[in-house]
């Protein structure tokens, strides 16, 4: 399951409602929201389900992106990503997975 970072540019006006609908669609496919922008969300998503999200009517453009270590605010971005991920990860489920016997 290769998970990578995708940038989604929303189609039409970016409102709270459309953003919520789009992020819900991403979460339904097992994706995680890394950051919200005025254009659309930055998400972590499995390659296999990315086409499903791409077909969502609110998606205007979707492309894989990566972090440029020489960017001006990479540290800050990573901090934002980590903070947002920590709010979405189901830590209880993670603990169960860790403890499961092989």
């Amino acid at each position: 399951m290769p998970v990578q970072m995708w940038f989604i540019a929303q189609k039409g006006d970016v409102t709270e409602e459309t953003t919520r609908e789009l992020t819900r669609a991403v979460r339904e496919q097992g994706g995680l929201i890394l950051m919200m922008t005025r254009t659309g969300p930055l998400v972590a998503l499995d390659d296999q389900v990315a086409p499903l999200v791409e077909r969502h009517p609110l998606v205007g453009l979707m492309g894989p992106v990566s972090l440029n270590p020489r960017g001006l605010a990479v540290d800050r971005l990573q901090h934002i990503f980590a903070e947002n991920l920590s709010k979405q990860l189901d830590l209880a489920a993670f603990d169960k997975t860790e403890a499961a016997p092989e």
Partner: protein
Amino acid sequence: MGLGATVGADLLAVPFPKMVLSLAQAISKGQLALDQASLNTLKVLAKTKFDYIPEITEVLSPSEDINAGGVTVTGVDVELITPRALKLTLLQAGIVPTFYQFTESVIEVKMSISSKVESQSEFEFGIETEASAGFLFASGSVSSHVNFKTSNTFSYSAEGSSLLRTTLKPTPPPARMMPRFITVNTLVQPPTVTFSE
């Protein structure tokens, strides 16, 4: 035409140059589409801005002592200095589109040629004689037969399958497609200049 010549002709009939050409064209079209998609993402990233506050300064300075419940606590004033937010694009901040490249392509052609030649001959020879003799006459007859059967079976089959496999790998953005950022920060004195790619 001998069997070897037939097999050779079949091997030569494999449209290998055409297959290579088709694969190359497909890769070329695919690469173009991938690059265009990455460039579209690049354009959007270059337009998407966010407010970036690189640092917030807190200045602690002594203030009047506070008496809380009979305990004297040193008073502190906290002054928060929030600089003007920088409008950074996501591209400037450090998010770049992922570019892909076809690194390896393999065409595998498998052919299975089988031929079978069966030759069968049957030869049968028979002779029958019959003789009888009486008082005044005698008679005899001789009959013979020759049977010759021959059959040749020739079967030839050629089966082929082909496999096209390509490997796609992410690569760093092409240097000429990515702008070089020269940031002149006039918020500090003297202004600083930062280069980043």
